[in-house]
């Protein structure tokens, strides 16, 4: 199999803002007095709550359950008493059912159920069951349940696993730090993934703006023939699955398909880390690496934060906000969601909290399109964003499919480069919702 170590022609290069946090090691966030754990933290349907108000729960205890095979449970990230099971504001901007836990001093831990439970199953099914039980989802941001991703359909012959350590979003440094500080856990997680899929060839893709991460991974995988570390030239949106498959292996994922359709499974490095924790230590997914950064934060940091901690609590550990204005973004600046409140909890999708000061966050007045073609030139999917956005805006939906609207992954490259500052992604989303 041929491995490509080349740059994608399209996409954009951004001054990435990672310099503030890339050399700050991951610190454990001080335990919060209260956590809010939404029942839906994955791509799919939420489960039913297993606890009631007033019940005492232990750290690691399962809080929800679902009959659906695709759903994953959520777990208590601290020990304490359930004070409410009610809708709470989440990073999605909606009120969604959540379990609120008030911390108590005496922490007790409840690990994952013992393996004896799975005695009758073959090894890879056991591992998949553990991952589901541990509530593991893709930690790259999409939160797709990991056990589903690791169950390719029969006709899909998977022959390569890619571990995605590109972290191409500006400002984010959690993956970078993780690869530097715990390469052994990342690699161990990767080996579990390869074992489940019975795949011999694994690649770890890292952008070349993370030389330390590349060095530590190389050191750790020295002598392992089946694991290749592939440095890639820094470019946004290189970490997008379809782009990465194309760059690394030269395979094109057909429109509407998944990388598994061309025999590749991609996981984020943090997912591998979480898989390692679940399988070797019995820890469900209750902690998350969160980068808190931006020019509105006095002391930016990389945290190992319990899921359910509020943005407010995490920001306070960075010295609060310099100014309670501007933008608070859950995730990176290119695809993250702006938040209207600091009450929202950190969930499995939250890779970062980015606080931009008012000056940087000011909305730009869009001008007329001058048809410069920059959006076309930079669209990593090879689409015509200018027409997609315009037709969406005027709601002329019948032409949108001809222009392959559904191929757009909303990476934001087009709106980033637009000299007229037109909100192209916003209009494209509008078009997607109208259809």
């Amino acid at each position, binding site marked *: 199999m041929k491995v490509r170590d080349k740059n994608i022609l399209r996409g954009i290069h*951004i001054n990435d803002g990672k310099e503030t946090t890339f050399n700050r090691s991951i610190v454990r966030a001080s335990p919060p007095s209260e956590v809010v754990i939404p029942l839906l933290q994955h791509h799919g349907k939420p489960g039913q709550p297993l606890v009631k108000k007033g019940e005492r729960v232990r750290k690691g205890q399962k809080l929800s359950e679902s009959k659906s095979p695709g759903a994953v449970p959520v777990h208590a990230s601290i020990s304490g008493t359930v004070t409410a099971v009610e809708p709470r504001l989440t990073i999605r901007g909606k009120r969604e059912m959540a379990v609120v836990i008030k911390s108590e001093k005496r922490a007790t831990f409840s690990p994952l159920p013992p393996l004896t439970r799975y005695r009758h199953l073959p090894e890879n099914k056991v591992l998949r069951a553990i991952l589901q039980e541990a509530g593991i989802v893709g930690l790259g941001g999409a939160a797709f349940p990991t056990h589903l991703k690791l169950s390719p359909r029969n006709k899909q012959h998977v022959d390569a696993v890619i571990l995605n350590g590109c972290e191409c979003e500006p400002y984010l440094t959690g993956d970078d730090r993780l690869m530097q500080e715990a390469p052994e856990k990342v690699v161990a997680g990767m080996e579990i993934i390869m074992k489940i899929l019975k795949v011999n060839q694994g690649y770890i893709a890292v952008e070349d703006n993370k030389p330390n991460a590349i060095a530590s991974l190389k050191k750790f995988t020295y002598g392992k023939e089946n694991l290749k570390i592939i440095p890639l030239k820094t470019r946004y949106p290189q970490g997008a699955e*379809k*782009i990465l498959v*194309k760059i690394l292996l030269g*395979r*094109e*994922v*057909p*429109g509407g398909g998944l990388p598994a*359709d*061309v*025999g590749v499974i991609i996981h984020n490095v943090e997912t591998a880390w979480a898989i390692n924790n679940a399988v070797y230590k019995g820890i469900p997914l209750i902690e998350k690496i969160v980068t808190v950064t931006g020019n509105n934060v006095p002391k930016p940091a990389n945290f190992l934060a319990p899921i359910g901690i509020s943005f407010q609590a995490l920001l306070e550990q960075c010295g609060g906000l310099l100014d*309670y*204005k*501007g*933008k*608070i*973004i859950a995730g990176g*600046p*290119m*695809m*993250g*969601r*702006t938040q*209207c*409140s600091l009450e929202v909890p950190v969930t499995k999708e939250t890779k970062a909290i*980015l606080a931009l000061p*008012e000056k940087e*966050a*000011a*909305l*730009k007045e869009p*001008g*007329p*399109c*001058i*048809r*410069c*073609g920059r959006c*076309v*030139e930079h669209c990593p*999917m*090879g*689409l*015509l964003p200018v*027409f997609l956005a315009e037709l969406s805006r005027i709601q002329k939906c019948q032409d949108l499919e*001809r*222009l*392959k609207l559904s*191929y757009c992954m909303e990476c*934001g490259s087009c*709106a*980033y*480069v*637009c*000299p*007229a500052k037109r*909100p192209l*992604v*916003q209009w494209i989303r509008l078009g997607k919702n109208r259809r």
Partner: protein
Amino acid sequence: MSLFITSSPPHLRSRITTTCIMYHVLIALLPAVAAAIYFFGTSSLLLVVICVLAALTTELFWQVFRQKKITVHDGSAMLTGILLALSLPPDLPVELAALGSVIAIAVGKQAFGGLGHNPFNPALVGRAFLLISFPVEMTNWPLWKGPSQSPLNGATSATPLDLAEENIITEYSALFWGNVSGSLGETCAPALLLGGFYLCCRGFIHWRIPVGILGSAGLLIYLDGSDPLFHLLSGGLLLGAFFMATDLITSPLTCRGHWIFGIGIGVLIWLIRLHGGYPEGVTFAILLMNMTVPLLDYYLIPQPLGGVSSRGSNKKNC
């Protein structure tokens, strides 16, 4: 209590703005303007200033009159004015230049809805208007002040293309450096190439368009038995290829569109120059190809990543 700004991503925007692009094109035109002043004297500076002022005033009046947002400072009207001035003969009466500029902005641009909506290059609309309405003034070339070759009749000279019709060949060095009569900005090849390369390298214009024009026009003229180098260096071909045809608003959006657009202009230039009535054909070639742009954009949709039809196919390159 929420004072936070909420908006759709992305939350980062590049520093390049529309105004920035316009000013970069203006910077790229500075060598051509300087060459015009050097070769045709300060009267050419007056022509440039008049055209720019007329363009800015027209835009301002239009926007005030129609109660639109005032965007005179975005550089686009100034660019139209300078481009028009550079395509005019040096001795053109200033009132005609001003009229051309007014037409360029009012009819060529604002009548269609302003910046970004005009189907034709406004400067060329102004020039075509003057060329058709005032053919005598527009082809009245002054004697070049330097060592000129055989002026035809006393007061006026002729452009190298006019001379070629009468089988008088101009030297290459004179053609290249601009020691010939012609429109203000079209004679000095080094100045135009400098500006054009600057824009191509910085990515402010699509390089495929000038390459397509120069390549196809040169090749066809060569195959037709004429001297391609002479034709590429004479008339408004370089000015048109680098600054007029590449106007972002009136050129296609896709790679294949750029090639077809550029090659189409080259073919039309060859037809008009060698087989048509005009010695010069760049203006009309570009205006004609401007008309095809909506069609090119509609049909030439690039193949997106993953657009391959069969599932699981392993296509290597797009």
